[in-house]
């Protein structure tokens, strides 16, 4: 069996065998499970830990678990974390420095081994988000070596989306609900009279090798066509849309829009959106010394453009107002990300909408900006505001 061609149908026993085979191969298997009233990502040891029979009810600033009669494991979206929790951890040591007896400093780069992850249940938008972070953290001249090491060793099991949430808009961002490469294995969950099963395709040699170890049967046309229909149907059931305009241009042409004041009146600048976002990558440096003063460490931790400290210069923060900080985030995500990295920074997963305590909705803001632009005469590039 060769890489990309391998397909099969596996059952729940096959999914369990997949988790156990990946773990037996030395991988730390991360997948969805029900905990604390949500479907979270955590290390799992077997198929019985998957959220069979659980779905989610999503709205702006609102997340609730719901039982599902069909027993599906992957009929959920926009969980509280994203996979960057593992690939781009919230806090990581960069180096240590020690002062020797002769007073000389010895600096040692962090060399703790990185785990070999297997990620189970990645949605197509998640795959797209990882591709976005790859360009940021591993694509330019300044590669983050530890991110790259984790990324290169990771085994990715995608599950296509058949049940979009009310806050999903991956279709608008060209990021789903069907997979488009970038995985080792792709699954599509089908639950009907024919049973509970997963249409599996290998996307790599390693994926094919793993698939070959599992209890499986040949892919049948009925399962395959049902799976394709479910995914195609999901594309028509997105809860949100972005305006069908050039979003990069929209951001550039609405820098002085009144709408930014409106959203700023609601924004708590609490930082939740950036922490939940699967592509937000910003970090700050944290220097730690011990009581002796002979040992120091440099750590890197997640930072957010909603933090006043984020833009702190000798005269104070460059973006002092909530308006300037929300605008920075949204215009970067939807606009200047293209200038910087050649793509949108948004994949339409909806996490920022769900996990915003006051339910600020980036799609609603984009629609409002688009309407304001149209109402105020459309095109034209206002001068860039230095700060506000």
């Amino acid at each position: 069996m060769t890489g990309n061609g391998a397909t099969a149908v596996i059952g729940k026993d096959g999914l369990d065998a997949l988790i156990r085979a990946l773990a037996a191969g030395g991988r730390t298997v991360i997948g969805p499970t029900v905990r604390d009233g949500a479907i979270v990502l955590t290390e799992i040891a077997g198929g019985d830990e998957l959220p069979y029979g659980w779905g989610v009810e999503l709205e702006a600033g609102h997340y609730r678990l719901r039982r599902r009669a069909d027993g599906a494991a992957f009929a959920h979206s926009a969980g509280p974390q994203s996979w960057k929790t593992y690939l781009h951890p919230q806090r990581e040591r960069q180096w240590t420095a020690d002062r020797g007896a002769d007073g000389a400093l010895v600096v040692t780069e962090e060399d703790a081994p990185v785990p070999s992850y297997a990620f189970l249940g990645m949605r197509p938008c998640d795959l797209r988000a990882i591709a976005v972070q790859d360009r940021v953290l591993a694509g330019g001249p300044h590669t983050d070596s530890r991110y790259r090491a984790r990324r290169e060793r990771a085994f990715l099991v995608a599950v296509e989306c058949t049940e979009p949430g009310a806050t999903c808009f991956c279709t608008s961002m060209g990021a789903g609900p069907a997979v488009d490469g970038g995985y080792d294995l792709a699954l599509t969950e089908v639950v009907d009279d024919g049973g509970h099963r997963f249409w599996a395709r290998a996307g790599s040699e390693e994926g094919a090798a793993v698939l070959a170890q599992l209890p499986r049967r040949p892919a049948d046309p009925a399962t395959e066509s049902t799976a394709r229909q479910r995914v195609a149907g999901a594309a028509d059931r997105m809860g949100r849309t972005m305006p069908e305009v050039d979003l990069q241009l929209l951001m550039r042409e609405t820098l002085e829009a009144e709408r930014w004041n409106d959203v700023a009146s609601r924004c708590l600048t609490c930082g939740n959106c950036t922490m939940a976002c699967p592509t937000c990558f910003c970090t700050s440096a944290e220097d730690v010394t011990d009581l002796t003063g002979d040992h120091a460490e440099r750590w890197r931790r997640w930072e957010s453009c909603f933090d006043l400290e984020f833009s702190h210069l000798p005269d104070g923060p460059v973006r002092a107002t909530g308006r300037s900080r929300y605008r920075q985030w949204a215009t970067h995500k939807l606009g200047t990300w293209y200038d910087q990295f050649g793509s949108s920074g948004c994949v339409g997963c909806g996490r920022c909408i769900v996990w915003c305590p006051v339910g600020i909705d980036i799609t609603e803001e984009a629609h409002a900006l688009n309407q304001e632009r149209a109402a105020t005469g459309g095109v034209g590039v206002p001068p860039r505001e230095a700060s506000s």
Partner: protein
Amino acid sequence: MADMPGTRPQLGVWKFASCDGCQLTLLDCEDELLGIAERVEISYFLEASSAPGPGPYDLSLVEGSVTTTQDAERIQGIRAASRRLVTIGACATAGGVQALRNYADVAEFQAAVYARPDYIDTLATSTPISAHVPVDFELRGCPIDRGQLIEVITAYLAGRTPDVPAHSVCFECKRRGTTCVTVAHGTPCLGPITHAGCGALCPAYHRGCYGCFGPSNSINFPSFIPLLRRDGMDTLDVVRVLRTFNTAAEEFDAASRKELSG
């Protein structure tokens, strides 16, 4: 805090109106306590030693709020004898829970509580240390976080600024990987307006933050208060949750007054 040749920096720990919990945090440093004692001379710390040194002090940690005229004078002397003065905890930084007296008639309290109110000699208000003397750094919390206390001491030993972010608890909650109790459970939580530092302890145990670290550096009350109401709080609940350990913090005080005035 420069090390004088042959001497260790002198540390003073001072108590004002408080419960002693923040001072105990220093004793609670256990693994680091001997290291601290090796690096600094614990010169005045009645909680730990009954043999106070004479001063001056390179670093003074001040716990508690000012509630008597004697204390209002005493803090002046401590300030004058201290190169750096750091307040530890909600009482010293924001007046503490005893600042609830600021909204009431102290004479009435005295008559209700004490058999001999004439024995009581107290001010009408509880005020933070910064209302009396310049303060070099304020450490938040009720009680303070042990890690942040060690960070402040080591930062001063190293001559660097303490790494004590003033952003919201939400930053720490998300970094910890905790599911948001407001979004997923509908639990009222002060995390979005509260100063980080505790590591988002309460939400990790499925409870809403109750603001014991006081206000963060970026608050939007007009948007936040309706969230508390949506999740079941009425005006009195909102006022009460803002009037706890940091009731006299300027932002919480103003917001609670505004709630009451409708």
